[in-house]
């Protein structure tokens, strides 16, 4: 049997609690928005040493690895694409993740790509990327994917085709590895730096990963490579045009009208290419396609 004051209290609570929780949820949303939009979002690591963390973890390593991995993703996601972003903590977060769980393969793949990519897509530290992947190979000698990633790193950012081929070759020795690794080794050794080879590598990465971030980066690079290829092709046609008509074409329309092109070529964004007065093809300024900066160094 309950008395009136008990009932009063119960009903007050029953009605007030949902209201209060809704207010709290809204407030929390606000707080989150505010702390995310802070330009220097503070991320602090409690410890600086992953090996100390491993000792302190009391055996909960895999769980902590998950936490650090989640933090790494969140850290990355909050910064990618925002001009002026720095990714100073990406390496330590991945360092922690892989120290606590050396078999965290996704982290190695993620690190390989996003540690070497330049800001605002990544940290721009290919040296750290290589160190990460090498560590991964040491802990997981059976995972040929990691050899392939190492090959990619040497090839793409460092343009060390010898070391890249060696990495692919090493990976191909694994009986489980598909045959294209061997083929890639040969290709890199002989035709390192060509657009075609780069395309093959990024295609492989795109197909073999489920991580949406990695796929996005691969796609961006593939689009850039396509544009690079198109530009090279159009430059040749421009030279051809000049030799015929004595001046460079003003636009791709001229090339079409001259019968050199079946139609108006567009970049992966759907915008037509522009031809400069010096005969060099370039992208429409409105295009979101980005020529990979490494490739820009390549001589024509």
């Amino acid at each position: 049997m309950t008395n009136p004051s008990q009932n009063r209290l119960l009903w007050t609570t029953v009605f007030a609690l949902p209201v209060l929780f809704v207010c709290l949820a809204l407030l929390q949303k606000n707080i989150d928005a505010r702390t995310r939009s802070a330009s220097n979002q503070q991320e602090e690591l409690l410890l600086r040493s992953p090996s100390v963390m491993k000792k302190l973890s009391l055996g909960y390593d895999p769980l902590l690895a998950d936490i650090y991995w989640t933090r790494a993703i969140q850290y990355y996601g909050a910064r990618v694409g925002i001009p002026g972003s720095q990714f100073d903590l990406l390496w330590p977060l991945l360092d922690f993740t892989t120290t606590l769980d050396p078999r965290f393969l996704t982290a190695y793949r993620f690190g390989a790509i996003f540690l070497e990519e330049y800001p605002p897509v990544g940290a721009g530290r290919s040296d750290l990327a290589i160190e990460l992947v090498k560590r991964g190979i040491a802990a997981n000698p059976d995972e040929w994917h990691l050899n392939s990633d190492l090959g990619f790193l040497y090839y793409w950012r460092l343009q060390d085709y010898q070391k890249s081929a060696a990495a692919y070759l090493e990976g191909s020795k694994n009986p489980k590895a598909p045959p294209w690794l061997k083929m890639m080794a040969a290709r890199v050794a002989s035709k390192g730096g060509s657009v075609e080879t780069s395309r093959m590598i990024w295609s492989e990465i795109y197909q073999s990963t489920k991580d949406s971030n990695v796929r996005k980066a691969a796609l961006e690079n593939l689009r850039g490579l396509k544009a690079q290829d198109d530009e090279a092709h159009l430059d040749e046609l421009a030279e051809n045009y000049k030799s015929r008509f004595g001046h460079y074409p003003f636009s791709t329309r001229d090339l079409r009208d001259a019968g050199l092109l079946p139609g108006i070529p567009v970049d992966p964004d759907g915008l037509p290419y522009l031809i400069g007065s010096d005969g060099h093809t370039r992208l429409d300024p409105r295009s979101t396609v980005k020529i990979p900066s490494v490739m820009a160094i390549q001589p024509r």
Partner: protein
Amino acid sequence: MSAPAIEISGLTKDYPSGFWRKRMRRSLDDLSLQVEDGEVFGFLGPNGAGKTTTLKLLMGLIFPTSGTARIRGRSIDDVAMHRDIGYLPEQPYFYDYLTARELLDYYARFFGYSAGERRERVERFLDRVGLASTAHIQLRKFSKGMLQRAGIAQAILHDPQVIFLDEPMSGLDPVGRREVRDIILELKEQGRTVFFSTHILSDAEMLCDRVAVLVGGKLQGVGSPNELVSMQVTGMEILFELPEGCALPSVLTGRAARAGTRYRIEVPEVELYKALDLLRDSEARILSVQPLRPTLEDFFFGLVNREKSANHATEVETR
């Protein structure tokens, strides 16, 4: 006539018991009684009878399964009711890091006195219960008797109209018990109502205007001690001595209790003179002849036994 001081109506309390807490144990069963203003009312019963349960229900420490109660016309749900009542719990325990003075001062603050009045009351009641000299000592160092006194002081320092005491004499030496008795009588003189539970029947007999007897959670009887126990004489008690060498009359042998040369027998009133004649013939020396009246204790044990036999369904040997 104003409302009764205490009015209990059908008060029942069940406790869940058993391993899965599905069975209900009824610790108080449909208690109804009334206490008038200015009465000293005793609440008697063996341990586990439900006395403390009743008091806890009245104080709002536990909640009734059914039934109601009013004190001075106010429901026990009403927090304002507590202004008029004082309560001494059984084997009280107080904040042992406080001194007696601090304890009373703390409790006094719940009544909204001015600082001066509070101070005055605290000192007055410390003095009244005899704690004036030890008021600065922390309660953790208090003896049982001293705690009991502190307990009484906190129960009455706000001059409540109705005072509830749960086993106020327990653990006290004879001096302490007399002091408590005096306080109860003083409260009665002041026109206050005192409701106290006890299993010391002689105290109840001496102090109470009326008593209620609770056994096994059920009310067994309410009335003045005299009402409950008839004035009827149940027999006569003879104390006598037999000189050395003299034998007890054979007809009395089985019924005499003996301690050294002294004997005691009880005989029905009608047989008194016959017994005296027998004893005179035996040259016994009569020490005393007294009528026997049933005491509250007899009544009490009679009830307890009746309850037990009702529970065990065995026959009770009657005298």
